[in-house]
């Protein structure tokens, strides 16, 4: 699945005026850059599989360690954003799906579409400007207060703004799934049966319809993850959040290609793993799938 080209040569060193041509040649030998491209590529893939992702040119330690250090914060941010987006999206979706008033449905749709149209780097910057620079309610970024003992409350306080900003983008997506699901499930036999036994329309939909709507969301989760990671990358830069997005940005600026490739590989692996997990989870939650 991962067929990324080997990143550019370490010509960066040549840009250093103190580097003599001999030193550059030796450098190329050490990195194996004198070999033809396909040989380099084959060796890179082999080493990758063995867990050797090359060394960071900047931090002078294995790239895999550099990337691994940044994985936690990214997971924390994307997880929190997912929670925000999912809960708001399901709430709005239920509201739009259950309500029969066109005004409500309209309003919900407008809010959701506006939410997904705002670029996070802009809304993030505005939030920081208003609530951090002017009002000083929230910190300007980072994982926690520097120098202070890490506490859960402090971490949450730092997490809130970026998670809300990132999560707001995905509300519309979830809302749409829930609303469409509720609309279609309303015609289903089991909802009609529930109504026939005397349940009100709303209760029948929520008690019997909603679980069937929410279940497929598990698989959507895996499909949405790449977009979520894209969003997290910008959000991390805006909020100085030390995750893999900011690492990618920094490594690109510093031309630290082993780390650049490492972040992309980790992102792809994360998507693969989540997709596998969601498939398994779906099977566990919905017995019908197991026999398919």
């Amino acid at each position, binding site marked *: *699945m*991962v*067929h990324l080209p080997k*990143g*550019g040569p370490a010509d960066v060193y040549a840009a250093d005026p103190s580097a003599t041509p001999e030193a550059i040649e030796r450098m190329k030998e050490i990195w194996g850059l004198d070999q033809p491209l396909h040989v380099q590529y084959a060796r890179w893939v082999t080493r990758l599989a063995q867990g050797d992702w090359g060394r960071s040119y900047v931090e002078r330690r294995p790239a895999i360690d550099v990337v691994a250090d940044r994985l936690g914060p990214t997971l924390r941010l994307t997880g929190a954003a997912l929670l925000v987006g999912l809960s708001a999206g399901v709430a709005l979706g239920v509201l739009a799906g259950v309500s029969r008033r066109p005004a409500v449905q*309209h309003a919900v*749709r*407008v809010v959701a*579409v*506006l939410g*997904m*149209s*705002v*670029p*996070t*780097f*802009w*809304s993030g*910057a*505005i939030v920081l*400007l208003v609530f951090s*620079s002017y009002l000083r309610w929230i910190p300007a970024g980072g994982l926690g207060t520097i120098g202070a003992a890490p506490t859960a409350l402090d971490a949450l306080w730092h997490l809130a703004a970026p998670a809300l900003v990132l999560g707001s983008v995905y509300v519309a997506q979830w809302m749409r799934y829930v609303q469409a699901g509720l609309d279609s499930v309303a015609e289903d036999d089991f909802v009609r049966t529930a109504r026939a036994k005397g349940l009100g329309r709303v209760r029948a939909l929520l008690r019997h319809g909603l679980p069937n709507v929410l279940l497929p969301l598990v698989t959507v989760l895996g*499909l949405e993850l*790449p*977009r979520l*990671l*894209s*969003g997290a*990358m*910008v959000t991390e*830069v805006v909020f100085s959040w030390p995750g893999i*997005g900011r690492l*990618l*940005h920094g490594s*690109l*600026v510093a031309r630290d290609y082993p780390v*650049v490739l490492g*972040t*992309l590989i980790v*992102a*792809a692996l994360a*998507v*693969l793993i989540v*997709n596998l997990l969601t498939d398994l989870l779906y099977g566990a939650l919905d017995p019908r799938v197991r026999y398919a």
Partner: protein
Amino acid sequence: MRWRAFLRQPLGVAGAVVLVLLGLAALAAPWIAPFDPNAIDLRAMQRSPGAAHWLGTDDLGRDVLARMLFAGRISLLLALAVTVLAVGIGTVLGAVAGFFGGWVDRLVSLATDALLSLPVLGLAMVAGSVLRPNLWTLAVVLALVSWPTLSRITRAQMLTLRERTYAEAARALGLPSRRVLFRHLLPNAVAPLIVAATLLAAQVMLVESALSFLGYGMRPPTPSWGGMLNEAQAFYRQSPWLAVFPGLAITVTVAALNFVGDALRASMGGRGG
């Protein structure tokens, strides 16, 4: 396409009107811009919005309104170019894959899945940093990472369309596959593709502006809306209008595209994208 159904959707119509106005403003930028977008005026640095400079000036005394208009040309042109390219690549690949099946299908589907499982922005950042793009390379880069959604939809359409009786009839007449595919089947898949293309344009707009904001887009002085936000980053606190207006322009454009796409989808009876 059911135009009546589309016209009954106020949000979609409003979105379309906004898009047309933005397009006209971008086209007319050289004539309606009050100043030269790159003219530096050191006596008028960081002026807040007022009578002379409606949207204020930036750190070099350049008029924000003029820069916004010219940036709009770049941003809209890029979004349009990328969408056209991505739709072209995506439809052709998806159509061929869905129609012929076999190893072509497997190859295209593999590429689609691989690209869809990577964060688009990350790929674009890498390409942008390696290539130092101009307008057209940037468009190609963005198109190369955005076509998979289109190819997936087209492929799915082809899988059902190729079993229809008129496809069979065309084949029975002895028409070559290429003609059956592009003259008889693809035109019937256009409706969902238009919806998908509109929503893709909104996505492209967001990715492009994020890319430019991070500094991987086009080099200054040519501004795009995202690039203006990037340039202004250091001055947000002193000159908040530098942060507000370009972001607002992006949001309005993307929202307009999303509303139009939404309305198109609804007017086609919920089919597609």
